[in-house]
């Protein structure tokens, strides 16, 4: 197992290097540079280019950058002069994480619940209801849902604050907004796999053995139907905890999500790189964790331990 994990980590480093290299050259292929503000005088722009080493040939910049990351130095932001990229990620990430893990729990718990309920009531009222919820969840983007929730429960009913403050209470609306589309995806996935499992011989066997409906669902159906959900959980986890620009904007969350868009339009090179590497590392890591969890849930997949797969 240890050998397997080590091997995977090594591969992860390779993947990260490829991603970092691609991002580096792609972002420098964008027209112009970070200093396009008409309010900056040309001599100031030139001084800034020199300060950030952007006057050097691209290949040289690349080598310098790679050397720095190898030392764990992600550099300093251009948009926010003087602030180190790793500090900025460190400051913003916990705020996105606080929403992300809540959203993940909402999405997983309700997603699985709706999916299973729908499958058990195949083509009955509850099934259609859950399909409707799923369709709504997938088709209403958070840019619509967020303002509606904020207006309805925040402004009109006054039950929740309209932005995130220091209270737990204020995290509910944004977490739900963030969770909805993942919830819908999980419930649809769960419904399909549960239906598949329900048709298997071993379920009929369990039924004929006289097991209670509860026992069948809990011990046999869920355990087998949940596998595909766990597969999507890794990337989903990484996506949710790194935040969403839309949810963060609507609920004024000081999170990471905004950077994924703003750093590119501002061409804040060190931030683009930092945020990309951070996100990539998170995804790779969560996929690895999911792969390890597989082994515990389904012993048949424990081939990994033999160094295979």
């Amino acid at each position, binding site marked *: 197992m240890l050998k397997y994990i080590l091997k995977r980590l090594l591969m992860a480093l390779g993947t990260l290097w490829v991603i970092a290299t691609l991002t580096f050259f792609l972002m420098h292929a*964008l*027209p*112009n*540079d970070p200093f*396009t*503000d*008409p*309010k*900056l*005088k*040309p*001599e*100031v722009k030139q*001084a*800034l280019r020199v300060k950030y080493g952007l*006057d050097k040939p691209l290949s040289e910049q690349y080598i310098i950058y790679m050397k720095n990351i190898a030392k764990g130095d992600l550099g300093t932001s251009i*948009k*926010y*002069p*003087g*602030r*180190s990229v790793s500090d*900025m990620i460190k*400051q*913003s990430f916990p*705020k996105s994480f606080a929403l992300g893990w809540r959203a993940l729990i909402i999405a997983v718990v309700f997603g699985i619940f709706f999916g299973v309920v729908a499958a058990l009531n195949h083509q009955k009222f509850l099934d259609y209801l859950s399909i409707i919820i799923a369709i709504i969840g997938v088709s209403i983007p958070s840019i619509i849902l967020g*303002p509606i929730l*904020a*207006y309805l429960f*925040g*402004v009109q009913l*006054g039950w929740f*604050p*309209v*932005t995130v*403050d220091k209270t737990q209470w204020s995290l509910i609306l944004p977490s739900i907004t963030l969770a909805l589309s993942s919830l819908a995806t999980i419930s649809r996935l769960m419904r399909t796999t549960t239906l598949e499992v329900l048709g298997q011989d071993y379920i009929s066997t369990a039924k004929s053995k006289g097991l209670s409906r509860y026992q069948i669902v809990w011990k046999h159906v869920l355990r087998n139907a949940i596998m595909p959900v766990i597969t999507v959980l890794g990337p989903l986890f990484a996506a949710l905890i790194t935040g969403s620009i839309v949810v963060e*904007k*609507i*609920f*004024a969350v*000081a*999170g990471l999500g*905004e950077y994924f868009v703003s750093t590119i*339009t501002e*061409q804040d090179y060190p931030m683009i790189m930092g945020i990309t590497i951070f996100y990539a590392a998170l995804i790779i890591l969560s996929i690895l964790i999911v792969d390890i969890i597989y082994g515990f849930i389904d012993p048949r997949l424990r081939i990994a331990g033999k160094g295979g797969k």
Partner: protein
Amino acid sequence: MKLKKQWAMLLAVVIVLGVALTACGKKEDTQTVGEAGQQTEQNGASDYEGEKVLDYYLSSEPQTLDPQQMWGQPDIQVENMFMEGLMRFGKDDSSLEPGVAKGYTYDEATNTYTFELREDAKWADGTPVTADDFFFAWRLAIDTSGAYSFLIADYIEGAADYAAYDKVAFLTEKDANFEKLNEEEQGARIEAMTEEELNAFQAKKDELWKNVKAVAEGNTISITLAVPAPYFPNLTAFAVYAPVKEEFYNEQSAANKYGIEAEGLLANGPWKVAEWVHKDYFKLVKNENYWNKDNIHIDVINMKIVNDVETRTNLLKTGVLDGSAIQSKDVPDFEDVAILDELNLQPMINRSDFSIFYVDFNHFDNPITQNANIRKALMYAMDRTSFVEKINIGDRPALAIVPEDFPGLEKTFREENEMELFEDNNKEKAKEYLAAGLKELGMTELPTLDLLIGDGDIDQKVAEKFQADWKEIGINVNLVPLPWAERLTRLQNGDFGMSASGWGPDYPDAMTFLELFESVNPNNNGRYNNPGYDKLIQAAKTERDAQTRIQYLYEAEKILIEDAVVAPMYFRNVHFTFKNYVTGVVIRGVGATTDFYWADIDMNAKNIEKQK
């Protein structure tokens, strides 16, 4: 100062959704909310013992709170709260209040301003603010190429020479061969400078700094200007002129905190930054060492960082904020007295933020837009009045270059140089110009013209309106939405005919708009090149007599319109409202937009409303 990426900023402030609601009756420009002075003295202090807390917002995370480096609005907003220069921004757009200096005198013969420093001006750590703190700051601004360091370098005698002398100049002087090296080799040579050379360079810099005509004598600072600038005292209220305590600067810079964390900020203004949680919120508390603290009524200012205008409106409606800017599309809502009453809000303050938006023409590489008659046809065909009634509700039609209410010599510039320099929406005249232009070009009809615009929804909405106007006189215009960086590339390459642009003032003088069209100005996107115009601008820049100087500026503006150098679209207005229990807030166009220096808050009324 306010226009960052102009159209992107527009997106943030003005979100236009629907068309046509009630026509918006523009109120008289009022700058102050409530009855400031009188009321505060009586009510304010009398029956409330606890802390007076104001809840407000910032529209985005400041890029930096290093006064010498900043240029964005949120940065300047906070700076004005915790810092103070020789003078402070006053209650209206051209007036000044005393700051670290009690006042100033001007000697016309030598073009010298003398500021008298007050003895009780202190830093938040209790140490006095000295003339050396100012000199250190100004030198620092130039040495670090601060965005607004030109406000120092271009004005104070000797500062330009100091700024221009860099390592390249040093090495050129030292070694005749240096000039012959290519750029890369020069760079390598600079990096390879020996310690001895660096010391010599530094010595030369020190020597040049001694020639800068800003000197302390007793408790005064005398500044001799290199150019005539009747507005110079206003500049001393700008962030770049704020003092810096050298010892604190060195200490915090070494800790990598100067200007970027709350600990790295040393206040000498009315409030100090107690907490700065990045991208989240600010907490400012009254500076007990501030010389004028007895006249500062608000003890705590909480500012949450809220990017989204819709969210801001929600916060205002739920009583989390004590006031807010109102976006254009909500203006009709907040003009409704019933809504204001329900939310316990004061009538809106509507005023110009001194930005102008216009269509830039290519004057150097496009035969069609180089034709003055064609440009005039485009300019006269635009219907700005219906545009500000239906699309950008609350803004003002731009029929000149310098925005309404912008200060002139004695009155506003517009009052002095005619409110309107041309007629809005004259399709007949436009057609005549078009016919004349086509004849000159030897064409029977114009090919479709491209108009570069920003890539937001608003840019599209604004441009569509004028596109329709142009179509009415038979000019087809194709809208090309582009991200800013790409648009800039095309502008620089001359690969355009027309482009939507905007500009806000850098300093409180009409020159900040008019010098844009000087042939050498880096922001002269269309590269308009008129020696006569350049001469006028240069004449204004060197003229000592304020009367004569402003005449040059009037004339310059008229040339821009006669030549249709650009086609003005609109002047932007901002709209603010505050709770009834807040008084004395000042909203201004140049410098920090919102100022709570004279503000007070009736906490009893605020607490009653909170309980509800």
